[in-house]
């Protein structure tokens, strides 16, 4: 298409690539926040990618993320008031929304979700099948157990909504230009310096890639990893229905793969089929605009039939349109958002997994704030771009994983489920041995991680997921107990490990870490890394191996985040170099009361408490191998972490297992790790704490050494925080007094009937004899002993209340006697 006369500015503060709901929302919010010289470049016409064919559901129900719930409420409100502000209607129609539960497992899930959503301010009511029928007369309800109804939810017209946001953006001076495609980014000194386009260059400080299904290939041009993948997405529109009931709400029944709403006098059925089809794995054509895909009736037939059975009249109606359009999905169903690790000021907001319309407004607000202040001020750990690895961009990975991603939107989200496709990408050196031991593996950042081990004679499989106790729980319990009473072996090779070396290594690490990590040789220190606002970026251990050699170990999910943070904060002229040693070292943990005895059997190094105290680390000999042995624990017992050169791991493992026979050494998996650490209240960044928390609220004040000689990032903020006096919110443990129920996430804790917080992560703690969770206690009053012990604590699990006990101090071995023995 020939271009019209386009006036491209030479300079801009921010260039947004992509004019769909995301790009226009970011433009709108940047404009409203007073950002000047913002340019949005749209390759063809606004909404011409995925936005134009989105179904337009505006639903606040369904998320177990506090961040997402708030954003959904914000979106609903914004779509409602945009017309008054801009003069353009968004087509927002609050017809209501019903989530239907057709079996017990769904009911359990939605009750949990409903409880949490209410906590977040969403007005959701559980209704009976008859009430569903009253609201949506065309539904078949004989097999339904209940519905979850939000009266104020409804739908929005995706094109109108986007145009209204665009108008709002223009009103604030944002320059929206159609017909211009970006062809790459101009880089200088490791940061963005401009954008190249089909119509010339624009010098700019910040770029935001909101190009939807093109985001990946646009990122690839500049070496940015954005592994989203387009897939076929369907909806069907029937012919008109005579006397269609008016004002029917939107009905969703994930067990039947469909959502149902009125459309132009007929019905629309939207589908999320369990096995889906990735589209254009090799890249979406540049000129695909307002495009559709030829629908695959054969593949979709069975799914359609199932979906139609929920609203039987659709079986008798003619099909006006069976629409198929591409939407992009990610490997883990979380969006891809944040500043790219590869390039400063290159931001990404893409891969919205079909919730772009719902999340667009809130994400736009967050991104605008992030760009303008450098701080997102929202928990980003769930969708940060740096959680994704480059191998996930591989053609085969995307091809195989996407097949499952789309369907997962509608699967019952059992707590212990792991993705089944694209498995086996990374295996530790002792994988085969673990398999022989009966390990059940799950996907741990691409590694095959042993979750639990099947006792001899039982199946290494999960036949059927449930919300209650699965068969394999007995294995988990045995491992947990072995960890407390005996000795266990855990493969932790998936942990991220970095060597930091050089003359300035210690100085640099001491500046980046809040704790004192540089004063003692052969010592491991647990420390948070804070940003200048005093909030947590990561938590990890730093071991000073030599004067100029340090080992940093951080959890797998924070791999690229920690690495990027580390590299970013090393001054250019420092003699400090970071090497990723994750593949170089296998990691095997030996933990439990008998661990010392076991270790002493295989090494000549004196492992007694005097010579090898808690937090000591040194290289030891085991058989023919040399291994780094650090005395640390994440389960709250006497224990050791071995870092073994990968090629020697099998050898060491063999020695450990042989020596372990005498002590009835058990293999233990991640479930046991989770329950053991939960008893001690050990934190897990990204699950119990995030970038909006500070170390004091999360109980890590002891790791912040305000009096150490060197300055550190966040010191001033910490000083100011401490000066503010008693903490108003604190991370605490909650124990369910009844041994029956299980805790996972989002269960609400109350004190004398008042909401106090919700479980961030939960587990079943066999030693304590009940489910335990970590939650951020946020009362309106002072948190002291009187408060903790003076009230009636309860916890709401799927709508039922249970008596509970709350503690700031660890519920198990709060004096740390077992660790230090």
């Amino acid at each position, binding site marked *: 298409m020939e271009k*019209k006369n386009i006036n491209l500015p030479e300079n801009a503060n921010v260039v947004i690539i992509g004019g769909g709901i995301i790009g226009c929302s970011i433009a709108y919010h940047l404009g409203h926040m007073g950002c000047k010289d913002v340019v949005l470049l749209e390759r063809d016409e606004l909404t011409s990618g995925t936005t134009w064919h989105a179904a337009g559901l505006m639903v606040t129900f369904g998320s177990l993320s506090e961040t997402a719930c708030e954003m959904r409420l914000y979106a609903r409100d914004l779509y409602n008031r945009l017309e008054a502000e801009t003069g*353009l209607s968004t087509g927002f129609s609050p017809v209501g929304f019903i989530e239907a539960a057709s079996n017990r497992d769904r009911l359990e899930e939605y009750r949990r979700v409903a409880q949490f959503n209410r906590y977040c301010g969403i007005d959701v009511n559980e209704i009976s099948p008859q009430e569903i029928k009253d609201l949506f007369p065309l539904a078949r309800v004989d097999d339904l157990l209940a519905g979850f109804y939000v009266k104020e939810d409804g739908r929005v017209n995706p094109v109108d909504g986007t145009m209204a946001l665009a108008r709002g953006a223009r009103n604030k001076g944002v320059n929206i230009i159609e017909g211009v495609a970006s062809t790459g980014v101009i880089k200088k000194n490791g940061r963005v310096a401009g954008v190249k386009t089909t119509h010339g260059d624009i010098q700019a400080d910040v770029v935001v890639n909101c190009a939807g299904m093109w985001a990946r290939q646009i990122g690839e041009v500049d070496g940015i990893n954005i592994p989203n993948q387009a897939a076929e997405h369907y909806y069907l529109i029937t012919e008109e229905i005579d006397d269609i009931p008016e004002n029917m709400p939107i009905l969703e029944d994930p067990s039947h793969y469909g959502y149902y709403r009125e459309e132009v006098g007929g019905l629309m059925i939207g589908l999320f089929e369990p096995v889906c089809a990735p589209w254009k794995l090799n890249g979406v054509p540049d000129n695909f605009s*307002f495009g559709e895909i030829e629908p695959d009736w054969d593949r979709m037939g069975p799914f359609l039939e199932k979906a139609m059975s929920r609203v039987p009249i659709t079986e008798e109606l003619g099909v006006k349109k069976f629409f198929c359009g591409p939407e992009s999905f990610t490997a883990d169903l979380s969006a891809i958002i944040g500043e790219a690790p590869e390039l400063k000021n290159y931001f990404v907001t893409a891969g919205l997994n079909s919730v772009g319309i719902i999340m667009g407004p809130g994400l736009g607000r967050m991104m605008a704030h992030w760009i303008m202040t450098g701080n997102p001020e929202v928990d980003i750990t769930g969708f940060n771009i740096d959680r994704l690895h480059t191998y996930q961009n591989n053609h085969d990975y995307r091809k195989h994983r996407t097949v499952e991603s789309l369907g997962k939107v509608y699967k019952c989200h059992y707590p212990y489920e792991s993705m089944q496709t694209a498995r086996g990408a990374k295996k530790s050196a002792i994988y085969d041995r673990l398999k022989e031991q009966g390990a059940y593996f799950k996907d741990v950042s691409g590694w095959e991680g042993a979750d639990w081990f099947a006792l001899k004679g039982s199946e290494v499989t999960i036949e059927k997921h449930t919300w209650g106790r699965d068969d394999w729980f007995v294995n988990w319990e045995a491992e947990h107990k072995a960890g407390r009473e005996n000795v266990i072996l855990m493969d932790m090779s998936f942990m991220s490990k970095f060597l930091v070396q050089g003359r300035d290594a210690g100085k640099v690490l001491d500046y980046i870490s809040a704790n004192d990590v540089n004063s003692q040789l052969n010592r491991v220190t647990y420390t948070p890394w804070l940003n200048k606002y005093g909030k947590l970026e990561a938590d990890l251990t730093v071991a000073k191996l030599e004067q100029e050699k340090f080992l940093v170990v951080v959890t797998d999910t924070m791999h690229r985040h920690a690495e990027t943070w580390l590299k970013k904060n090393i001054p250019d002229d420092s003699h400090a170099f970071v090497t990723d040693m994750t593949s170089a070292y296998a990691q095997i943990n030996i933990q439990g009361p008998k661990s010392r005895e076991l270790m002493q059997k295989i090494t000549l190094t004196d492992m007694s408490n005097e010579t090898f105290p808690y937090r000591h680390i040194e290289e030891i000999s085991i058989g023919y191998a040399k291994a780094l042995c650090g005395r640390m624990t994440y389960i709250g017992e006497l224990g050791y972490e071995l870092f073994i050169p990968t090629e020697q791991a099998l050898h060491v493992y063999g020695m450990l297992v042989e020596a372990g026979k005498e002590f009835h050494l058990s293999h233990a998996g991640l479930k046991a790790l989770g329950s053991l650490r939960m008893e001690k209240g050990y934190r897990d960044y990204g699950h119990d704490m995030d970038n909006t928390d500070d170390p004091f609220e999360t109980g890590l004040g002891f790791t912040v050494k305000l009096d150490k000689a060197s300055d550190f990032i966040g010191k001033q903020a910490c000083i100011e925080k401490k000066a503010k006096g008693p903490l108003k919110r604190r991370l605490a443990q909650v124990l369910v007094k009844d041994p029956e129920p299980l805790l996972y996430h989002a269960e609400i804790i109350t004190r004398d009937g008042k909401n106090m917080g919700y479980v961030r992560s939960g587990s079943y703690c066999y030693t304590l004899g009940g489910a335990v969770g970590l939650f951020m206690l946020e009362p309106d009053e002072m948190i002291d002993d009187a408060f903790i012990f003076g009230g009636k604590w309860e916890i709401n699990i799927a709508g039922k209340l249970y008596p509970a006990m709350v503690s700031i101090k660890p519920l198990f071995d709060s004096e740390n006697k077992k660790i230090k023995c």
Partner: protein
Amino acid sequence: MAQTVNRTGVLIEIENHQVKETSLGVLTAAAGQEIYALVPLDDASGLKEKLAEYGVDHIVSIKGVEDDKISPDLLARILVTAVKEYGLDALLGTAGAAGKDLFARIGAILDEPLLSDCVQVDIPGKKAVKSHFSGKTFATLRVTGILFLCTVRPNAIEAVTAPAEGQLMTFESDAQDPGWMKIVELKKESGGKRDLIEAPIVISGGRALKTARNFEMLDACADKLGGAVGASRAAVDAGYAPHTIQVGQTGKTVSPRLYIACGISGAVQHFAGMKTSKVIVAINEDKDAPIFSKCDYGIVGNIFDVVPALTQKL
């Protein structure tokens, strides 16, 4: 190797015994050729001045075809014999409803290729340019065949005077009606509105017109302009206008010299139906409406103020 084309016949369309404006453009398309105007009147002498002015060398009065219920098959056969009689190398017509039908019949009878509804014609090169894909593209097509058959989109080629002799002749054919078809009735539309496809000026309304009644405002303007009224799909779907005047990909394609779009946003689908108009004017309240980036002149304003004002000024 292209055959040299010398003799070109142009089928002239008549209304109230006058040469239709649209036929003059077709004559211009044949400029440079030896032009035979085929006139469906027993006596075309009254048209000599006009036809000669626009380049006609020979004016052929075709006898016996003035009956408005004449079978199109018979008319086609008569024209086929005229082609033979005068040794015509090319035959051009107007791509209105009648012309398209007639020429398709001629093409079928002779099994010669037909280029229909063209916007540019190159008789010596045996080529023409016409729309493909409902106005999205232009295709340049070349034909090989003995007779170059072509219909021209009404108003696509601007009529230019080219004085010529206009020698009068008459022709009577011996062609036979195959007799298998008969026109039994002609129903004229009441009101005699101008045909959308043939009108030199079109003024269209969109959903912003809000009622069928409001289209009368456009009728008044069209009358002053000497044009026809069209509608966008949104207006038709909403019931404000009949689908017979829908302009757009699923409606009619027009190419007037002036197209005025009132209250039409300019979505791709509508635009394809009129994008080859010579001049496009848009009147819309929304300054960000897509149509403003696709037209020649725009007025940001309320159509209910602007259109009557325009009607008054004309």
